[in-house]
C-alpha cells in the first residue's frame, strides 16, 4: 500500500479532530476527549506510514508519490515518524489535560493543535516548493495563534516577537527558494535536486537557507523567540513547538544543504558544525540560569538542536571531502538524535506540563517533593532526564555516541582542519553533557526530591490516567530506542544512505553497534543494561552477608544543621545550585547573542516600549501574513516558470 495514503489518513484524522472540536464546542467534555482519541489514531497512522516506509524502504530519492505535489522518501518518512510519535503522545495527553480548558476556549486550542500537526505532517511529504511554503506559513500562523491563545498581554507580546522573527525566517527561506527555483526552472523538488545551483550562488543560497531555517530551528543567536513563546503555550501544544516544529528547521537545512546543493563546499560543513557546537553549549548554559521549568526546557531544545547540527555538519564535511563513511556516520548520529530528542524532550515537556497542571506555577522553587505525590510522573520524568543527559544505556547516549564517533572519525582523517574541529566538537559535546547533567540534577532535584517547598506542592496529586499513559509510553520508548540500538541503528544507516545516495554501511553486529569501522569502537546497550542489572547482585550480596541483626532502614527527623534548628528554607534552591557556574562563566551570561540580535536590532523597528507592542501587534502580524502570501503569489511571475 502506498504509505502516502496512510499519511492522508493521518492528516484526515487530524482534520476530523479539528472539525469535531469545533462542532462540539458546546459539549467540550465529550467532544475534546473524542477528538484526542481521533488525533491519537492519526498519529498512529503516521507512525505506521513512516515506519513501514523505513523498514521496507528501497533505495532512492522518492519512494512513493501522490500526484505531483506529494512524495515520500526515507527522510520524510523519518520526519513523519517524529511528528506522529510526539503528536500521538500529546493527543493522548490532551484527553486529561484539556479538562483545565473546559469552558475557557479549549476547543479553539485543540483546533489549532490539530491544524498545526496536520500542516507539519503535510509539509515533510510535500514535493513542491509552493506546497512547502504554504504549509510552512500555516505552521507559522497556527503556532502563533497557539502562543497567544491565553489572551494575556505577556502572551501577545511573546507571540508578536515570535511572529516577527518567524517571518523574517520565512523571507530568508523564500529568497533561498527563489534562487533554486529560477535556476532549475521548476517547482518540483526532484527537478531542483537534479539541477543544483553551482558556484558562488550556491553559497548564497546556503547562507539564506541556514539563516532562515536556523531561526526556525532556534539555533543559537537566532533563538530569541523560543524561550519566550514556548512557556506560554498550553503544554501539549508547546510540546509540538519545541520537539517537532524546530525539527522542520533541521529538515530544511538538510534539504537545502545536502539534497538541493549537494554540500559541495567544505566550509559549509564547518559553519554548520561550529554553529551546532555553539548552540549546544550556549543553549545549555542559558538553561542552567533559568528557574522557570518551561523556559529551562526551551533552552534545552536549543542545546539538542545544536547536537543534531554537529552530526549534520560532520556529514556535510564528509560529502564535501568525498569521504562517504564520514558523511554516513555524521548523518546517522544526527538523524538518530533527531528522533531521540523528540522522544525524551516530548516526555520532559509533557511531564513538566503535568507538574504545571497540578502546581499552577512554573517556578521550580515552589515545587519540591513531587516524587512522593506524583510518583508515576516522577519516574517517567527521571527516565527523561537520564536520557537527555545522555546517560547509558538510554537513547540520548546512543545517538550522542554515534556523533562522538563521527567526530573521532573526522579527526582520524588527518587533515589539519579535521584534526582541529573533530576534537573541538568532542570537547563541546562533553562540556554540553556535563552542563546538562548539572541542569537536570537541578530540575529533578528541586522539583521532585526532598521536601515540598510550598503548601501547593504538598497538596499535589498524581495526574489523570491519560497524562500518565502518555509520559509512561514515551519513557518506555526512551528505553527501547536506547537498549534496542543494535536493531534500530541499521535503519538509520539506511535512511542516511538514502539521503546521501550511497550504499548503507553495516553499523550493527549481533548485540552491538560500531561506527562502521569495527576496531574503532564498540557499544552494546543491551549488554550494558544486562550487566548493570546483574551487577546489582554484588551490593545485594554484600548487604546479605553482613545482615546479622540489622534493622530495616527508616526515615526520621530533619537533616543535620550543625546543631541549629533546621528550616526548610535552608535547603538549596534552583538559583543556588548553579551559582558557582554563573559566577565562573559570568562573561557568557552578560553577553547574550539573542538579545543583541533580535531585541536590540530587529524588534525596536516595530515598537518602542511594551504597551504599543501589544496594541499594534495583531496588525503587524496580519501585515506579515499578507506580505508573505503576496510574495508567494509573485514567485511564479518573478522567476518566470509555470507551477
Amino acid at each position, binding site marked *: 500500500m502506498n504509505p502516502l495514503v496512510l499519511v492522508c489518513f493521518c492528516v484526515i484524522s487530524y482534520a476530523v479532530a479539528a472539525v469535531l472540536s469545533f462542532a462540539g464546542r458546546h459539549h467540550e467534555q465529550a467532544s475534546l476527549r473524542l477528538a484526542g482519541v481521533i488525533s491519537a489514531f492519526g498519529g498512529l497512522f503516521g507512525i505506521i506510514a513512516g515506519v513501514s516506509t523505513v523498514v521496507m524502504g528501497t533505495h532512492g530519492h522518492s519512494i512513493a508519490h501522490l500526484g505531483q505535489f506529494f512524495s515520500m522518501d526515507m527522510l520524510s518518512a523519518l520526519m513523519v515518524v517524529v511528528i506522529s510519535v510526539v503528536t500521538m503522545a500529546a493527543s493522548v495527553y490532551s484527553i486529561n489535560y484539556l479538562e483545565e480548558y473546559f469552558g475557557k476556549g479549549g476547543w479553539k486550542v485543540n483546533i489549532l493543535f490539530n491544524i498545526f500537526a496536520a500542516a507539519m505532517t503535510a509539509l515533510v511529504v510535500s514535493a513542491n516548493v509552493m506546497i512547502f511554503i504554504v504549509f510552512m506559513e500555516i505552521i507559522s500562523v497556527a503556532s502563533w495563534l497557539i502562543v497567544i491563545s491565553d489572551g494575556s498581554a505577556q502572551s501577545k507580546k511573546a507571540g508578536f516577537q515570535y511572529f516577527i522573527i518567524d517571518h523574517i525566517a520565512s523571507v530568508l527561506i523564500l529568497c533561498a527558494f527563489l534562487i533554486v527555483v529560477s535556476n532549475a526552472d521548476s517547482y518540483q523538488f526532484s527537478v531542483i535536486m537534479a539541477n543544483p545551483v553551482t558556484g558562488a550562488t550556491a553559497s548564497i543560497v546556503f547562507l539564506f537557507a541556514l539563516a532562515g531555517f536556523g531561526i526556525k530551528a532556534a539555533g543559537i543567536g537566532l533563538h530569541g523567540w523560543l524561550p519566550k513563546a514556548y512557556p506560554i503555550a498550553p503544554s501539549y501544544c508547546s510540546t509540538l513547538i519545541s520537539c517537532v516544529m524546530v525539527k522542520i528547521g533541521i529538515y530544511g537545512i538538510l534539504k537545502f544543504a545536502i539534497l538541493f546543493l549537494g554540500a559541495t563546499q567544505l566550509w559549509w560543513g564547518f559553519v554548520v558544525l561550529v554553529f551546532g557546537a555553539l548552540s549546544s553549549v550556549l543553549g545549555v548554559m542559558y538553561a542552567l540560569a533559568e528557574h522557570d521549568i518551561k523556559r529551562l526546557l526551551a533552552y534545552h531544545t536549543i542545546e539538542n538542536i545544536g547536537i543534531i547540527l554537529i552530526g549534520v555538519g560532520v556529514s556535510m564535511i564528509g560529502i564535501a571531502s568525498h569521504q562517504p563513511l564520514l558523511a554516513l556516520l555524521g548523518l546517522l548520529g544526527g538523524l538518530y538524535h533527531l528522533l531521540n530528542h523528540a522522544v525524551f524532550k516530548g516526555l520532559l515537556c509533557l511531564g513538566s506540563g503535568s507538574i504545571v497542571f497540578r502546581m499552577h506555577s512554573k517556578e521550580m522553587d515552589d515545587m519540591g517533593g513531587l516524587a512522593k505525590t506524583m510518583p508515576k510522573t516522577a519516574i517517567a520524568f527521571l527516565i527523561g532526564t537520564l536520557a537527555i543527559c545522555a546517560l547509558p544505556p538510554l537513547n540520548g547516549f546512543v545517538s550522542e555516541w554515534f556523533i562522538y564517533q563521527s567526530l573521532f572519525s573526522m579527526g582520524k582523517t588527518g587533515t589539519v582542519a579535521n584534526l582541529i574541529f573533530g576534537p573541538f566538537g568532542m570537547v563541546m559535546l562533553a562540556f554540553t553533557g556535563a552542563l546538562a*547533567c548539572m541542569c537536570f540534577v537541578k530540575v529533578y532535584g528541586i522539583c521532585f526530591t526532598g521536601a515540598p517547598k510550598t503548601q501547593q506542592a504538598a497538596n499535589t496529586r498524581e495526574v489523570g490516567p491519560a497524562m500518565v499513559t502518555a509520559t509512561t509510553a514515551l519513557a518506555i520508548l526512551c528505553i527501547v530506542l536506547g537498549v534496542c540500538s543494535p536493531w534500530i541503528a541499521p535503519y538509520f544507516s539506511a535512511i542516511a544512505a538514502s539521503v546521501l545516495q550511497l550504499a548503507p554501511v553495516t553499523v550493527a553486529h549481533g548485540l552491538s553497534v560500531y561506527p562502521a569501522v569495527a576496531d574503532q569502537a*564498540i557499544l552494546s546497550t543491551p549488554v550494558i543494561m544486562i550487566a548493570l542489572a546483574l*551487577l546489582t547482585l554484588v551490593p545485594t550480596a554484600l548487604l546479605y552477608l553482613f545482615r546479622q541483626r540489622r534493622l*530495616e532502614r527508616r526515615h526520621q527527623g530533619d537533616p543535620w544543621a550543625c546543631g541549629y534548628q533546621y528550616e526548610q528554607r535552608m535547603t538549596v534552591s534552583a538559583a543556588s545550585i548553579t551559582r558557582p557556574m554563573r559566577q565562573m562563566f559570568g562573561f557568557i551570561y552578560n553577553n547574550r547573542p539573542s538579545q543583541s540580535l533580535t531585541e536590540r536590532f530587529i524588534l525596536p523597528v516595530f515598537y518602542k516600549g511594551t504597551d504599543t507592542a501589544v496594541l499594534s501587534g495583531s496588525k503587524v502580524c496580519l501585515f506579515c501574513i499578507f506580505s508573505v502570501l503576496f510574495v508567494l503569489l509573485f514567485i511564479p511571475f518573478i522567476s518566470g516558470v509555470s507551477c
Partner: protein
Amino acid sequence: MSPLEMPTASWIVLAVVQALLMLFLAPLATGFSRVIRAKMHSRQGPGVLQDYRDIAKLLRRQSVAPANAGMIFWMTPWVLVVTMLLIGMALPTVTQVSPFPISGDLITDIYLLAIFRFFFALAGIDSNSMFAGIGSSRELTLGILVEPILILAIVVVALVVGTTDLGYISHALANNSWHRPLTIILAGIVCAFALFIEMGKLPFDSAEAEQELQEGPVTEYSGSALAMVKLGLGLKQLVVVQLFLAIFIPWGKASSLTAGALISATIILLVKLFIVFLIAGLIENSMARVRFTKIHRTIFPAFLVAVLALIFLILGW
C-alpha cells in the same frame, strides 16, 4: 587491530573477578591514604585496615534517612557501586586488551562516570540537607570543569592510536605507538591532573570537604547505606587511577590468559597502584584547599595544556 567483539566466557569471568577484586581492595586504597596522611601529620593514626573495619561495622548498622528523603536517596548507593564495577570490568588492568570491551569505550566510560556523578549529586539534594545540597552543586561544577579537559586529553591519545577502545589504546601504547612521544606525555600530564580531581582529593576536594561541608552529598547517609557509599567512592578512586595506568603506563601486563602471566601482571599492577596512591597522598597532604570560587582559574590552564597536546598532535611531534 582485529575487530572488537563480544568477549568470550573466560574473558567475562576475568572481568568479573577483576571488578570484584577492585571492590575488595577499595578500602585498602582509602586506608592507605589515611595512613599517609597520619604520617605526614606526624601522628599515630589508624592502621591500614581501618576502612575494612569501618565498612564491616557500618554494613551491620541500620540506615536512617531524614524524613523527607526519597527513592533517589536509597537508590544511589547501589548506582555508585554498580556503575564503578562496570567500568572496573572493562579496564585492561592485568591484560593487554580490555577483558570486557563493551564498557571499555572511552566515551562510554566518561558517561558511566557521569551516571555516578548524576546520582551522587541528586542524592545530596534528595537528602534535603543544605550541606549536601551545596556539596552536590560543587560536585557538578567540578564535573563540568573536568570533563572537557579529560575528554580532550584522552581523545588526543586515542587519535594517535586511531581507536577509542581502552584496551586497544593500552595495547598499542604498550607495544609500539610511541612515535609521538611529546603529544602523549603532555596528554598524560593533563589526564593525570583531571583524574586527580576526579579522585576527589585535596586541593580540589571541595565536594566532599570534610571540615566545612561535612563530606558533601554523603552528609546524611548512615549505617549500611553509608558503607555502600564509602565503598563506591573508594572504588571510584581505584577505577580512576587504573584508567590512567591503563592508558599511560601500560607496561608489564599479561599477553595471554595463563595463571603465571596473570599473577606477575597483578604484582606489577599492585606496585604501580602503590606508587600512584603514594604520590597522590603526598600531593594531597602537602597542599592547601583551593578556594572553590577560584577553582576554574586553576583548572583552565590545564585545558590550555590539553590544547597544546592537540597542537603537538597536529604538528606530528
